[in-house]
């Protein structure tokens, strides 16, 4: 019963947040250095049943071409059954999977950014499955960022912008 009540409350809370500030990006500032944050983030993602498909080292690429950059990485993650289903039924959505989260160093802290999956929902107004999919991703992203909070032992500031 407690689980069910928690689910109801989470849903209500999510709806409240979503209604008040339904924006295109979800950002979080983590009070931890980027390399450490990056490692913990991978754990948090996998802890939610996603696989980290790969990591794009944008900073490495830029350095190779002579451009100075702080740590800048993009983590690609997803679930095989979701990606397979989407590529089968919605090929037009394929550019947006796997999901991508940026990890950007800002002095001793780290900024995480990801497109708010709810942003996609307006393109599928009558597709209940996709609406559920986007809501699920949104829920998981908030939960992953919440896990980062537990790991750092400090509150992680989440922002919904644009």
């Amino acid at each position, binding site marked *: *019963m407690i689980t069910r*009540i928690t689910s*109801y*409350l989470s849903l*209500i*809370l999510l709806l*409240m947040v979503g209604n*008040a500030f339904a*924006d*295109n*990006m979800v*950002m*979080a*500032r983590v009070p931890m250095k980027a390399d450490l944050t990056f490692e913990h983030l991978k754990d948090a993602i996998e802890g939610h049943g996603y*696989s*980290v*498909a*790969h990591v*794009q080292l*944008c900073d490495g*690429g*830029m350095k*190779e*071409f002579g*451009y*100075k*950059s*702080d740590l*800048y990485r*993009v983590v690609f993650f997803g*679930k*095989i059954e979701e*990606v397979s289903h989407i*590529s089968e039924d919605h*090929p*037009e*959505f*394929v*550019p*947006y*999977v*796997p999901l*991508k*989260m*940026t990890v*950007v160093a*800002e002095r001793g*802290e780290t*900024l995480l*950014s*990801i*497109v708010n999956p709810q942003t*996609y929902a307006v*393109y599928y107004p009558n597709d209940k499955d996709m609406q559920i999919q986007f809501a699920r991703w949104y829920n998981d992203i908030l939960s992953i960022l919440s896990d980062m909070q537990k790991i750092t032992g400090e*509150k992680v*500031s989440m*922002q*919904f*912008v*644009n």
Partner: protein
Amino acid sequence: MRKLILIGLLVWMVSSVQAAPNGRDLYFQFCNACHQMSGQGGIGLPLSAEKLDDVSDEYLTKTIRLGRPGRVMPSFNAMSDAQIQAIVSYLRKRTDTQEKVFDSTILVGDVNNGKALFERNCVTCHGSDGSGQGKGTGVTLSRDRSFLVMPPAISNPGFQASATDKMIKHIIKVGRVRSAMPSFGALGLKDQDLNDLVVYVRALGEKAKQAKRESIPEEDESMSHVVESPYDFDTTVNNLKQAVGGSNFRIFPDRFLEQGLTDEFSVNKRQIGIRFCNFKELYGMLKIEPRLGVVLPCRVTVMERKDGKVLLVVPNLRVVSRWFNNDELENLWNQMEEGFNEMIEEATL
């Protein structure tokens, strides 16, 4: 019993929501990611005592409410007046500053003299159109951190609606501490010169508004471009690689769409991402918008469907660009969009 608990919790939540808003908590939730709790800034401008000393609470309130359309600063138009007031009060307390109040008198001046003065004294930093010269706002990533603040976009409609004439005049007169903005009063501009400059800054705002109205394109609202190839899967992939190679991009190793999500034997090998990047452009774009990684790198996906059709799929960059609310990227997005289209056209000719 379960219903009672639920109702009780709901009542508690609603009463919590209705309690007086806490400025620090709101700042933490909505401002910290860009401006940081200390106010030293990052993606967003610093909100330090030096910066808040010379502005009114009304300016801060309107800035939060309206944002800076076309820049990173969003419009928090869903916030209540009480919430915004709480954030402003928190900022005042944290920086130990008092607001400077300016009345809303509309200043009168000679726009031609204002233009001449602006071109002589202001264009180097603010740009000839007052847009801040396309260098973003906050100080982050690899950007030069010696400036506390990058030159603001004074022609931006959010700034224009938030700042009164007298506030703009005051800042021109006294300058900005710890920034490249000098005191033009100390440099010898007379009171009427300052008025003339303000009048010209307003004219720039009008011009920007007009330009924006004229540049609104007919929108293609689909999320992606899906093109059917006349060739088989392997030929299409090869054609595409040749087209990308001829377009001054660095090509990354191919990746199957499902690669990394399942074992190498189960992965669908008839869905492949051709990935590429121009690091010079990437560097320039990330300086303007550090969050761009969420849509990078450039990728064209080639997919063979069950019915044998081969599709090439790319994101619609005009749709994606709107998520960033950053006009400075518009030209770059358009160039990329054209580049994508040309490559796909070449691959499917």
